[in-house]
């Protein structure tokens, strides 16, 4: 049987782009939610366009995406809703668009969070990556603007970076649609549970802080045994984070990190009935 040499083999990530259906804004009945986070001006909206086929306004100045933009794509039969968040430097919100991004990552229960970073400013971008990793382990670092990096003579050791961070790292030049296939592959693996990461977590070494965190983490584990990141909640409480304090007082802390099982079950039922 003659094999067409140009056709991608079934196991290869490139195989995905063939079955990628860009769905624009058809947002009903999705199976998984993907959030696009990152520092301002790293190409999140370009990645968004590449995935959904929409034409989010992109440009060279920070602060264009001010609220959430949502789109969808489907691949191998699964439908993904993509949420393009405004750029933030950290999850300790200081302005409205940062608050929107933070609230979505915390309370919007995305199944996968892709942090888009600028390869030419990696050190500053990693601040947000580490913060997101503290909350959820379903993170992918998309190292974008690789063409800019090589133009400046920078080369990035992606493998060591992935090893040190403990999460998958994908090289991308979204502007030229390079790396999209790999990104889709990893998004799918994480969404369906085939890939579980063990992200690097910040260590607190000062004895007072460490003791305080340990004590509170224990109590949180007892009160809310289901949440996967009690230590992060403890740190937020010590920091005086109002939203988290209220969530703990109201008792709906569990909602923050559970993957929205109830919502999805409902959606799958709806799709099944169509």
């Amino acid at each position, binding site marked *: 049987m003659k094999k067409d040499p140009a056709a991608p083999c079934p196991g290869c990530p490139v195989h995905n782009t063939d079955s990628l259906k860009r769905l624009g804004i058809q947002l009903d009945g999705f199976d998984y939610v993907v959030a696009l986070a990152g520092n301002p001006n790293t190409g999140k909206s370009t990645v968004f366009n590449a995935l959904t086929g929409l034409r989010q306004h992109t440009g060279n100045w920070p602060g264009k995406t001010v609220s959430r933009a949502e789109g969808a794509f489907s691949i191998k039969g699964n439908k993904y809703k993509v949420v393009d968040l405004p750029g933030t*430097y*950290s999850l*300790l919100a*200081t302005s409205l668009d940062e608050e929107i991004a933070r609230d979505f990552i915390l309370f919007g229960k995305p199944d996968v969070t892709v942090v888009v970073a600028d390869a*030419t*400013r*990696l*050190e*500053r971008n990693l*601040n947000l990556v580490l913060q997101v990793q503290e909350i959820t382990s379903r993170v992918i670092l998309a190292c974008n603007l690789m063409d800019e990096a090589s133009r400046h003579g920078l080369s990035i050791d992606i493998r060591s970076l992935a090893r040190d961070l403990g999460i998958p790292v994908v090289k991308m030049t979204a502007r030229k649609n390079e790396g999209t296939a790999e990104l889709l592959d990893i998004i799918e693996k994480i969404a369906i549970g085939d890939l579980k990461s063990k992200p690097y977590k910040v260590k607190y070494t000062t004895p007072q802080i460490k003791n305080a965190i340990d004590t509170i983490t224990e109590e949180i584990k007892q009160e809310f045994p289901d949440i996967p990141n009690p230590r992060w909640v403890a740190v937020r409480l010590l920091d*005086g984070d*109002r939203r988290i304090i209220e969530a703990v007082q109201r008792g709906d802390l569990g909602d923050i990190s559970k993957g929205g099982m109830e919502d999805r079950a409902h959606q799958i039922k709806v799709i099944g009935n169509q």
Partner: protein
Amino acid sequence: MHNEILYLGLFSAFILLCILIFRPSNGWFWRLKKRLRLSDGVLSEDILKYFAQCSLEGQLGTLKGASGATGIAQNKSGKLIEKLIERRFITVQGSGFKLSQDGLAYGLRLIRAHRLYETYMYEKSGFREKDWHKLANEAEHDLTINKINDLEKQLNFPIHDPHGDPIPDYDGTIKTYENKLALCDMQTNDTGVIVHIEDEPGNIYSKLADMGLCPGLKIRILENDSLTVLIWAIGKQHLLTKMQAANVHVIKKQLDTKQMEGSTQTLADYPVGKIAQIQRISPRISDSERRRLMDLGFLPGTSIEKELVNASGDPIAFRIRGTLLALRRSQANLIFVKDKPL
């Protein structure tokens, strides 16, 4: 020919009149508007606020004191106080006046509104320190309880206002420093941390603010004689008059020379092209700005290099963690650095 000159003259006179009436802050129109706003209600609230402050300091309020603090003539003050007694906010106590439960609650609410509004301006606005007090004095009468609570939430429940004054809770509880001293009462070689700067009178506060003094600053007394107080703070000497020193409150604390010395060079005047190491960010920077700087990588030990300076000296571009970032000169002036060790 004469007609034109006449018309020109009339026009100029008209413009002059408009300027006199509508010139910002001092124009007759605005002054009139302000005086009309100063209804009895507003003035009574000012008096209640004064008495509440007296109560917090453990002192008895007097008519003279109220009149002096609020700027209301003694006759008028007397009448307003009488009305307040009728409404059961104030009771007579010996030679002075004392607030009833309701009166104290009302007064504390005003103080709370005032201090929260000042904190709001410090954190979220570009108003200068000299203007906070005046603006808060106007705003405190207009803020409803709900607006005050929302403001508190928005500011993430601050404990002190930017002068170091404690902010009363919604139920009126308030924390005070037990053992704070005025600067003029300290001895030579005492060290401590500034916890409070009195915001009235305004011109003394302005001078103190210009010197860079603020809550959180570590100081040492160098000399304390009958007319002046010489202190060491922010890496240099400051000479204060006794009156100025009386308005600065400090908590005595043992500070070793290492804590006192610390770097005095700021990013504003650091030379171009040399690599510096960040030591600390001044306590004068508001919380939200400090957080933003830290998120951008301004942490103790971080290397930073001044790359570009605008012709006027403001703004200034720095290379930090691989990115080029611009700061205003006033911001750069509050970040302390030292030469990076090789």
